[in-house]
């Protein structure tokens, strides 16, 4: 299984991973990098295209969730580079992804005037290639390749995917979180023991303090700012964290009876909340249970934002998109409010390098804006890690759940990944990899081969397994018939019969000379009692015709033609009983004990 990776290596910019498993090629996510405005924005597909068309090479594409760093390059990939095969994602992702793509396209093309970008029609055409999957549904991509989605939390509709070919499998987590939050549940996977687990590692080193503390902290900061008359800007993405924070503020405002207005920018809000309402089965237990009585996504205190409100006097809280302050309304409001130290901006999620969000979080207070303007940031800058990624503890938890043979870390920063890698290798004793962009990791697997065993043969063996003397490992003997790709293990007799071949019997008869003047019958009797006493575990019989049998070996006593004092024992056995037969002859050769009679 070599997963190679045009996109996400040691950097949280974008995700795009190529996995080859059992002769099938699957692309995991198709993200874009939001820190770039040029060609570097999209993954480099020339790695694949130099060998031919994408559609011929890839068996399918899987999108884990609707964040643009996981699906933003999809229309570019399918419509501009050219891919016509199936694209799999969950229903909520399929519903929301085109809206975010269109939103992003508008900012890039209409506001920034970028050329060579995908069009609205391309987004539509791209979405036509999407096949929606249910959680836990086993989707048969073709006869050999199957995929299965697991709940990942993180955002509405986020999923982890298991990719399976024969007995080989890979699990790709996308982004996930292992602790339920105010609107989503925790990721879960069964003990599927994949050959490889590819996990994100955004928060590879952080073990975050309890969610409650962070929430209290957040509320306290917002409350303080509003009390002193400041304006609070919370840059968010329209869907996801925004809903969780809205629920949080809504309940807080209600409890504290606060009057300062809360706004949510862009027309997407109501629509976004509507998606949460319709896909309520994807949210957490509590919301699902109570939605009939009270829908958590209908807010009383949070109202739609108008651009003019930004200049209103007095305190307010505004949720504005996009979340990394790289464009759009959040950036506009930020520029307006940045100069006043009473105001506050709270960054509730991760910001990629190159964005304004990233700059102010790294302490920069003088920003160079378009047109050489310098913006001085006096407002309070706060960072709250609310983005729902698994922390180190969560990642370890997932590794423990799935029990993979190998772990591959992606979507994180190199130093932090190194730390986690060591931890995983120590605790689980599995190999852990952390490839860079464009690097290929190859894992050898040794799958066992499933074949059909004839029930007769199996039952015969199982029955023998129940015998008391079966402590020694017993050998099962059979013949494997291989016809095309059909493998069957049958008893040798059946194999001969099926192929129309006759059995060839090979039989041995050895003459053993024995000094014994008595009659043949008596000799036989002596042989019988001797063997009976030696071979306690075997079936020794004295037949009416005077012959002796040990299992299927026949012993007859005959007179010697010349010497009356000697008897000849004829020991006869088949090739299949060779060991015992040859043992018996050597035993009898030693003679019979005298005392017997």
């Amino acid at each position, binding site marked *: 299984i070599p997963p190679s990776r045009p996109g996400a290596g040691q950097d949280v910019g974008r995700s795009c991973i190529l996995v080859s498993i059992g002769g099938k090629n699957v692309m995991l996510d198709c993200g874009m990098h939001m820190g770039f405005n040029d060609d570097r924005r999209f993954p480099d597909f020339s790695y694949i295209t130099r060998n031919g068309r994408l559609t011929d090479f890839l068996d399918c594409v899987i999108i884990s969730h609707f964040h643009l760093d996981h699906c933003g390059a999809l229309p570019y990939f399918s419509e501009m580079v050219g891919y016509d095969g199936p694209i799999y994602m969950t*229903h909520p992702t399929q*519903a929301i992804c085109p809206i975010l793509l269109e939103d992003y396209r508008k900012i890039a093309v209409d506001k920034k005037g970028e050329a060579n970008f995908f069009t609205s029609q391309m987004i539509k055409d791209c979405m036509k290639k999407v096949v*929606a999957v*249910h959680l*836990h*549904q*086993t*989707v048969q991509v073709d006869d050999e390749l199957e995929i299965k989605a697991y709940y990942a939390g993180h955002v509405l509709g986020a999923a982890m995917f298991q990719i399976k070919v024969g007995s080989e499998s890979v699990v790709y987590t996308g982004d996930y979180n292992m602790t339920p939050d105010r609107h989503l549940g925790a990721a879960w996977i069964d003990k599927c023991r994949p050959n490889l687990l590819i996990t994100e590692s955004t928060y590879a080193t952080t073990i975050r303090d309890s969610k409650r503390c962070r929430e209290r902290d957040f509320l306290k900061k917002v409350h303080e700012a509003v009390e002193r008359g400041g304006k609070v800007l919370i840059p968010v993405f329209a869907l996801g964290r925004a809903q969780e924070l809205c629920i949080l503020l809504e309940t807080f405002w209600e409890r504290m009876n606060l009057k300062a207005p809360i706004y949510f920018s862009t027309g997407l809000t109501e629509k976004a909340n509507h*998606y949460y309402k*319709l*896909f309520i*089965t994807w949210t957490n237990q509590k919301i699902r249970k109570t*939605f*009939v009585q009270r829908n958590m996504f209908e807010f009383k205190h949070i109202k739609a934002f108008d651009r003019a409100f930004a200049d209103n006097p007095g305190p307010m809280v505004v949720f504005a998109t996009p979340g990394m302050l790289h464009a759009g309304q959040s950036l506009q409001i930020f520029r307006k409010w940045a100069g006043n130290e009473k105001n506050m901006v709270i960054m509730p999620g991760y910001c990629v390098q190159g964005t304004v969000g990233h700059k102010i979080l790294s302490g920069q207070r003088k920003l160079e804006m378009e047109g050489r303007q310098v913006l001085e940031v006096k407002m309070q800058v706060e960072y709250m890690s609310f983005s729902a990624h698994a922390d180190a503890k969560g990642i370890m938890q997932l590794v423990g759940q799935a029990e993979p043979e190998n772990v591959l870390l992606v979507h994180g920063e190199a130093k932090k990944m190194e730390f986690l890698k060591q931890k995983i290798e120590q605790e689980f004793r599995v190999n852990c990899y952390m490839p860079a962009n464009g690097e290929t990791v190859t894992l050898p697997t040794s799958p*066992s*081969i*499933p*074949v*059909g*065993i*004839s029930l007769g043969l*199996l039952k015969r*063996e*199982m029955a023998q*397994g129940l015998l008391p003397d079966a402590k020694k*490992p*017993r*050998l*099962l*003997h*059979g*013949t*494997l*018939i*291989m*016809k095309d790709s059909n493998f*069957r*293990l049958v008893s040798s007799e059946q*194999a001969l019969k099926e*192929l129309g071949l*006759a*059995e*060839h*019997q*090979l039989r*041995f*008869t*050895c*003459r053993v000379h024995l000094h014994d003047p008595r009659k043949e019958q008596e000799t036989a009797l002596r042989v019988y009692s001797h063997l009976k006493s*030696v*071979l*306690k575990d075997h079936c020794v019989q004295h037949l009416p015709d005077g012959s002796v049998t040990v299992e299927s070996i026949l012993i007859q006593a005959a007179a010697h033609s010349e010497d009356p004092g000697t008897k000849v024992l004829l020991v006869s056995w088949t*090739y*299949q*009983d*060779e060991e*015992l037969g*040859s*043992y018996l*002859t050597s035993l009898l050769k030693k003679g019979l004990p005298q005392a017997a009679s």
Partner: protein
Amino acid sequence: FFQYCLSGHPTLPCNVLKFKSTTIMLDCGLDMTSTLNFLPLPLVQSPRLSNLPGWSLKDGNAFLDKELKECSGHVFVDSVPEFCLPETELIDLSTVDVILISNYHCMMALPYITEHTGFTGTVYATEPTVQIGRLLMEELVNFIERVPKAQSASLWKNKDIQRLLPSPLKDAVEVSTWRRCYTMQEVNSALSKIQLVGYSQKIELFGAVQVTPLSSGYALGSSNWIIQSHYEKVSYVSGSSLLTTHPQPMDQASLKNSDVLVLTGLTQIPTANPDGMVGEFCSNLALTVRNGGNVLVPCYPSGVIYDLLECLYQYIDSAGLSNIPFYFISPVANSSLEFSQIFAEWLCHNKQTKVYLPEPPFPHAELIQTNKLKHYPSLHGDFSSDFRQPCVVFTGHPSLRFGDVVHFMELWGKSSLNTVIFTEPDFSYLEALAPYQPLAMKCIYCPIDTRLNFIQVSKLLKEVQPLHVVCPEQYTQPPPAQSHRMDLMIDCQPPAMSYRRAEVLALPFKRRYEKIEIMPELADSLVPMEIKPGISLATVSAVLHTKDNKHVLQPPPRPIQPAGGKKRKRASDDIPDCKVLKPLLSGSIPVEQFVQALEKHGFSDIKVEDTAKGHIVLLQEAETLIQIEEDSTHIICDNDEMLRVRLRDLVLKFLQKF
């Protein structure tokens, strides 16, 4: 492979399948037609019902008049209504490993099974099935518990007394096992044993069997089930539909290659066309309302009602009914309407696309928003103040024995302006109406049953080609009322195997293979040889390991060399294990080449004699005789192990091992 049939009702099945080492219950249907023998439970005291005369025997003996009441020539039990449970004695239900539920109508007996039989297994069902199933149970419990009835009649159940009663009481089956409704506590406990599954999810049972739900197209989350091992496959088809209504379409392709297809839950009204019935429903409704009458639609709180509301949504304005209020009264009305909107993934494509916009998939959201449709938990409370006539009321229960519908029957029954329209097919409308006779209101029978009809079944069977079909006996002959309609039965080859309540059926399986895995190390050591073009053989000697019903072949252990081989050991230590199997041999020995080989290996003085069947090779010097025939070789020699082994190896060179 056996099937134990615990229910005689073809659309409310309950079967137990013994499949390999697992015991699987297929559905848990509750036969509620038994309640038709009881008097309705009125929400408000009904003088008419309480004044019905007691029933007495022909000889005037009136000892049953407290339990049995007479209404228009029919006799009813005056007691808390009771249900006919699946058979619980045929098989020890505590041995059931899993229960598979196909749709929300087929799980109503679940609390009786999971709570009172020692059942400790898991129940599998889809999320909509569980949620809506819960609503149906909640409604049922609510209907019965809110009108507590002191009397619980049991005298009439006595076998000797039952014989004396008029039909249909006389012919009611298994009355002694009839039970009262479960409680909400039992419902919650039963539902907590359910594990949610999605369509096409493969669920492993004990490593031996895999079960998979497939979309059946009949209701939200309704499923058919595949029960299979690596070499055997049973398809369980229960309540499927090929019509395009709101649920996701039926998955037919996955039913192919079945050894056995168990077919239940076909349409109960094979002669009615659901589309035609919907049209008739709308026109009768409009006619009544225009004449100033009220329309009563006895219904379940989920299912066909969604489709009816959607039709009315399109029909209301064109029929000039915009001002007529539509009421939906059920303790779970609100929940049902809300739940219907959140199962986008389980809906047909059209409705899914609406959710992507995002818009609610069902138009009843708009009916509610525009106040055309109002819903109430019961006719007490807000409803009584909002109530305007003429109106249309959707309410339960379709048996007309409990629920708010009883009140409306009493209220509107006396006027011929009003109409009751029966849409649910589960109860005979004539029997349902019997305790309300004489009745002035109009009765329209528009049963809407979207499940498969016999034409669709025969097409389906041609398509998926199962080796055997198993079905309730009702499907192997035309319905009693239409005995000449030979088209109203299942027609397939070989003929369907039929079952009836309390019967055990041996399923026709010919098991011949089982899956086993060959470990890679062992696979590497195998030496295949091509025997015929395209067919290769390899002899396998390996150690069999069996764990959790999975079989694995591992390489045989290396023979342990006896330490210090010179040491003399006791004879018994050397006794070989006779169970070490040697391969079989095949082929024949060409005498001339064999003799040449003997000579090459230093044997001289070789004589060959022809016999009737082959040859005898004599090694005179060694006093050895070798009989060679077409398919046997016999070496007769002195007790000289070295010689014997040499000859053996020479012979084996000409033969193939298996």
